[in-house]
């Protein structure tokens, strides 16, 4: 038997997790190690929705795949419901995975096109609970009702291609919650859907999460979506969590220059005036030290060393020397203030209101003179 979980256990805990890939070719002599994740630590507590934000290649999907046990980390430990999953045998992992539900990005690819909806949805009950055909049938109908696909008996007979994108994502959610998992991982669940449909799907996700009492890891590139749905947010950049904290705190008052850059890049925050200027970085990305320093307008000599995690307010952490002692960069503080004023309550980043606010231009356009160390 596995050790019994402690009384107050995190649902999911990553402890200094690293994942490295060997890249390059033996024959061309350019073998190297690609560090997809570098010292990633976070936890998800019961009932919590945690947002994971980052651009392509930042390591979002690697985190999701390690959390599901599909990938094993190179170092560090991963605990799901109190059990180490990074060292588990494949057979034991399979039982642990019943505690996990996964909603993928593309409902056109995540459902087997040759299986009827009933076959897709009864599989978890067959594999994990060995229910009889009649019991499975009842469970499938219950699930379809719960995700708003009624009459359930009609939808159960259909094939995925007979459903719209929103309906397919409802089926994917039904499959994810079939075994009432403690943790839902939603990887860009609505990015393939139209805006008039995505709200319906997100509301459904929130409904089922409340009913079954699960926690959620919500992976998204869309800061506005994360702001609306998540309790806490982790910002991932090149395999490191560079900023994290309560969503309202992080997105109202971001501190890491990369988070600042993400925010001013969102079309809803940009103004047409900002389109006039143009800044390009063509250098190869930095290695060692702070990984954002070559694109950072506030880079200092000490950025050659990896910064420690600074905690500005309780729970709000940032991997940046700007938060260290004896550092005072006025341009950085001004930019934070500008972003904070736009993001304050009542001035949500909707397409309607964004024009009415001052323009927090990304200071890359005029490289600032940094004071401080």
């Amino acid at each position, binding site marked *: 038997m596995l050790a019994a979980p402690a009384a107050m256990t995190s649902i999911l805990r990553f402890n200094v997790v690293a994942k490295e890939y060997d890249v390059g070719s033996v024959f061309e002599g350019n073998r190297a190690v690609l560090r997809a994740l570098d010292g990633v630590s976070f936890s998800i507590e019961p009932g919590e929705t945690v947002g994971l934000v980052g*651009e*392509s290649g930042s390591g979002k999907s690697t985190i999701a795949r390690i959390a599901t046990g599909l990938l094993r980390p190179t170092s560090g430990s991963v605990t799901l419901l109190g059990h180490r999953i990074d060292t588990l045998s494949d057979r034991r992992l399979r039982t642990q995975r019943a505690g996990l539900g996964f909603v993928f990005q593309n409902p056109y690819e995540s459902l087997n096109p040759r299986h009827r909806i009933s076959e897709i949805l009864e599989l978890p009950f067959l594999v994990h609970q060995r229910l009889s055909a009649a019991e499975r049938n009842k469970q499938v109908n219950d699930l379809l009702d719960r995700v708003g696909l009624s009459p359930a008996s009609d939808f159960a007979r259909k094939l995925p291609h007979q459903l*719209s*994108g*929103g309906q397919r994502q409802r089926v994917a959610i039904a499959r994810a919650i079939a075994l009432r998992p403690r943790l839902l991982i939603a990887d860009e669940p609505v990015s393939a859907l*139209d*805006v*008039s*449909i*995505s*709200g*319906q799907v*997100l*509301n459904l996700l*929130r409904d089922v999460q409340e009913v079954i009492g699960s926690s959620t890891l919500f992976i998204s*590139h*869309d*800061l*506005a*979506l994360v*702001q*609306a*749905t998540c309790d806490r947010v982790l910002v991932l950049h090149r395999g490191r969590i560079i900023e994290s904290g309560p969503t309202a705190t992080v997105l109202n008052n971001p501190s890491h220059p990369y988070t600042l*850059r*993400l925010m*001013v*890049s*969102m*079309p*809803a925050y*940009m*103004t*047409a005036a*900002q*389109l*006039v*200027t*143009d*800044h*390009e970085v*063509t250098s190869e990305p930095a290695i060692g030290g702070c990984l954002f320093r070559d694109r950072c307008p506030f880079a200092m000599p000490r950025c050659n060393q990896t910064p420690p995690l600074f905690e500005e307010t309780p729970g709000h952490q940032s991997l940046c020397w700007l938060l260290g002692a004896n550092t005072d960069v006025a341009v950085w503080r001004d930019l934070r203030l500008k972003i904070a004023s736009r993001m304050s309550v009542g001035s*949500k*980043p*909707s*397409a*309607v*209101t*964004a*024009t009415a606010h001052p323009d927090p231009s990304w200071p890359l356009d005029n490289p600032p003179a940094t004071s401080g160390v």
Partner: protein
Amino acid sequence: MNAPLLNISGLRVQYPTGDATLTAVDGVDLQVREGQRVGLVGESGSGKSTLAFVAARLLRSPGRATEGRVDFEGRDLLSLDEAGCNEIRGSRIAMVYQDPFTFLNPLIRVGNQVSETLQTHSRCSRSQARTQAVMMLERLGLRPGAVMARKHPHQLSGGQRQRVVIAMALIGRPRLLIADEPTTALDVTVQAQILRVLSGIIAELGTSLLLISHDLSVIRLMCEFIYVMYAGKMVEFGPAAELFTAPRHPYTQALLRASGHDVDANRRFFTIPGAPPDLRRPPEGCRFAHRCPHRMKICARSPALLPVGHAGSHAACWLHQPP
């Protein structure tokens, strides 16, 4: 006022399907003036991409424009022969699509793909075309241009590939650029860079823009005049300033509200109930009626697209017109 550069009028595009005909675009008008930046907003299935393909005469069989006209620089594109179209496409009208990888030839260096486009459409020597291609790549932020020109598409990132595609589209100095979701597949910081470059270069070349997107915030950023399509019909159009601050059509209002990602106290998003109609069997009257919070009896009849306000806005909604 001068005649518009692109004038689409009464356009109807149909696709034959198994048991019925699907009318993707149903009697639509759209104009792009010289130097203007026009946005076309709509969700999947609204007909916006079909419209873009017809405007560049790139619609493939079985889709067919069954009614209406597409006038470009005073010539009717729909009645032009293939040779005439080839002359216009690339040199007068250019298109950029969402997915740059399918657009580029994986076996040819990107510099050659750009210079080839120029050689096809203008009488210039190979070396002149190459020099211009390198300059164009640099202008789009692919530096050093001479090095980037020697790369193959798979050696470039998604954002770099999209820059190459834009270079190919603009090297012939077209009068009109039709961009269909040009940044949808890209990361937000890359999207911002590309929108900056695109905005700068079309201003420099004096190229008009027809930007098609589902993303209202991108459209707001780039365009001065906006059209909104729903279920094959144009439901509203007007100057960006007015459309974003005082949208008239309930669909435009709902779309703006939904894309703001506002949540209520229970963290539930605003949603538009229901789904768009099946265009093989479109409902009588207003096509948004069954999802509309303001539905009235008269909505069973089709509303005309009529002027509202004084800024040139039009809306197809009975709320804004006498019955």
